[in-house]
């Protein structure tokens, strides 16, 4: 691609007079940010507000003084500040909390080192839930690369009404967790419901099951609903990938005598590699973080009998209790430790995937 990255400041002569100010404000910003972090851990409103105000002043000073020489600092500061304070900092806090036995009230004081991690990695519940995440990922991965890709290929031919189909198929992706949950619970409900009367109406009574109470079936219905919500994304991403494949290349291959299967195998498919990389990464991340659909379809205990349990439900139970009963011994430290294990595992797996898949792209 025609792309030119210019090292900042190389184009015009710097203004040395600004430099000491930049260093001063840079130092002050970092220092006041650290003070702010400490204050939100150990203190309450008036102190934290003052700390926030001081940081805001220092950061503004930094943004103004760097604007000429290093504009990227000015561009990065606002977003990075919010991101560091409201995403990165809580994540680091979570790592810290995972080393404590903590019921969630007050400051954690009972330091137990890696005991929580030892408990996590020896618990059956953890592996059971992780296994379901893995199966869910595998199932959705297969579906998105067959059904999703096929939908994209069909839309790529620009059939009549293709924009309507595209909009409709993506629509479930914007429906809220609450709505999705209520709708599918009612559809699969045993005494009310849509599916049961539908099958009865078609005289297929023998197919009627206890949809949300079946050891085997419930999990696969969950996969179905997850795919219902997910399918628009691979369709759109693959469609974009297909539109990047130049017609000239395909025509050249056909003239050289390649059949349609060979054209797909040797030209279209390799050129879809960037879309494939993105979709594989996103699918992996989303399916391991999945919470909404298992929660609304099967409740927070992964009913029936933990056959629909996933990792984030385990965290939710240990952190907030079962919801129906008041839990006296919540294990926040333990819950957070599961989250940490999840985070590290997803990050590692995604990095490996990306490196591996990106290399495949470069080779082509």
């Amino acid at each position: 691609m025609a792309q030119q990255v210019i090292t900042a400041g190389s184009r015009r002569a710097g203004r040395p007079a600004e430099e000491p100010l930049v260093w001063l404000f840079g130092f002050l910003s970092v220092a006041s940010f650290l003070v702010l972090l400490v204050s939100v851990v150990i203190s309450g409103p008036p102190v934290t507000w003052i700390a926030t105000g001081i940081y805001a002043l220092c950061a503004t000073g930094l943004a103004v003084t760097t604007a000429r020489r290093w504009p990227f600092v000015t561009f990065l500061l606002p977003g990075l500040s919010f991101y560091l304070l409201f995403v990165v900092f809580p994540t680091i806090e979570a790592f810290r909390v995972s080393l404590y036995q903590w019921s969630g009230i007050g400051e954690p004081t009972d330091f137990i080192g890696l005991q929580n991690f030892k408990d996590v990695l020896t618990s059956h519940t953890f592996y059971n839930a992780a296994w379901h995440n893995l199966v869910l990922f595998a199932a959705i991965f297969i579906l998105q690369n067959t059904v999703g890709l096929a939908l994209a290929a069909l839309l790529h031919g620009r059939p009549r009404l293709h924009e309507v189909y595209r909009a409709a198929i993506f629509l479930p992706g914007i429906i809220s967790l609450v709505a999705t949950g209520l709708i599918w619970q009612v559809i699969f409900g045993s005494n009310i419901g849509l599916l049961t009367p539908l099958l009865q109406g078609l005289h297929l009574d023998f197919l009627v099951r206890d949809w949300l109470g079946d050891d085997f079936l419930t999990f696969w219905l969950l996969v179905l609903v997850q795919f219902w919500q997910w399918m628009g994304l691979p369709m759109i991403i693959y469609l974009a990938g297909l539109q990047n494949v130049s017609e000239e290349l395909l025509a050249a291959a056909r003239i050289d005598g390649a059949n349609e299967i060979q054209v797909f195998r040797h030209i279209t498919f390799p050129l879809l590699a960037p879309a494939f990389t993105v979709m594989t990464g996103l699918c992996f991340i989303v399916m391991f973080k999945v919470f909404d659909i298992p929660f609304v379809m099967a409740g927070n205990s992964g009913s029936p009998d933990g056959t629909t349990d996933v990792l984030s439900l385990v965290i939710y139970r240990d952190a907030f209790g079962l919801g129906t009963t008041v839990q006296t011994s919540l294990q926040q430290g333990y819950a957070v430790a599961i989250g940490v294990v999840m985070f590290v595992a997803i990050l590692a797996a995604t990095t490996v995937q990306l490196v591996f898949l990106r290399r495949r792209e470069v080779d082509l």
Partner: protein
Amino acid sequence: MNQATLARVRPDNRAAQRNGSRVVFVTFRQVVLIGFSLFAILPGIFTIFSSFKSLFDFYSNPLTLPQVWHWDNYVAVWHDAGIPQAALNSFTVVVLSVPFSLSFACFAAYALARYSFRWSNVVYYLFLAGLVIPAQLTILPLVLLDKNLGLINTYAGLIFPYIGAHMPFAVFLLTGFLRTVPGELRDAALIDGANEFQVFYYVMVPLLRPALATVAILNAVGIWNDFFFPLVVSPKIPMLQVSVYNLLGVYSTEWGHIFAGVVIAAVPLVVAYLLLTKQFIAGLSAGAVKG
């Protein structure tokens, strides 16, 4: 258009046969696409029909149109469960969060896509790592953070974390999009005497419009639909999804009323999505594939 050109390039002796199979293929294609579109929207249609039904109608004729259209379901829900106030709360939070998260992400993406500095890759991957963080991992520390900043039960207690939380995907998408913009455009503007911020505002932002629409919609959808975070952080300022969920407590099994609430909560989003769908899809595809 391209298909037609190609058909002319191919040898002609099998053209007739191809025409026949072409009709079969076109029909097949329509059937499959209609099938999947129905799969996607039928649960929604079912919800809309159900929201107009009386309780008896809902149980005895789950599959049909309502026997009598009960508009009063909507009237009742609108008045009973604090829905207008909750909708206003959600709307306020969306309107105050999205412009900030959008512009901050846009600035950051521009810095990462256009400048190479010593830490640029580190910062880029720091943002991307945010995609991987499970919400359940950070929710407890985040609640404590809000509490110590005195932001529980305030709009700010939702807005600030949303701005942070929506950075990763927005930065990923916008950086990907910006990397496709030729660097010469920036050079030309700089030579013409624009400064870095004028380049950004007058050259880059107009080019970014489809990607910005995508990010704005995704953020608005994410915030409008969020349930757990407002449930924990702002119990006294109920957001829309929380209020809709609470309808379960108000009406227990009066599904007509509950679904009326679901429809009210979904309509603004669906309308916005349908109006902006073209830009939304264009931005999503461009940013994600080229990133």
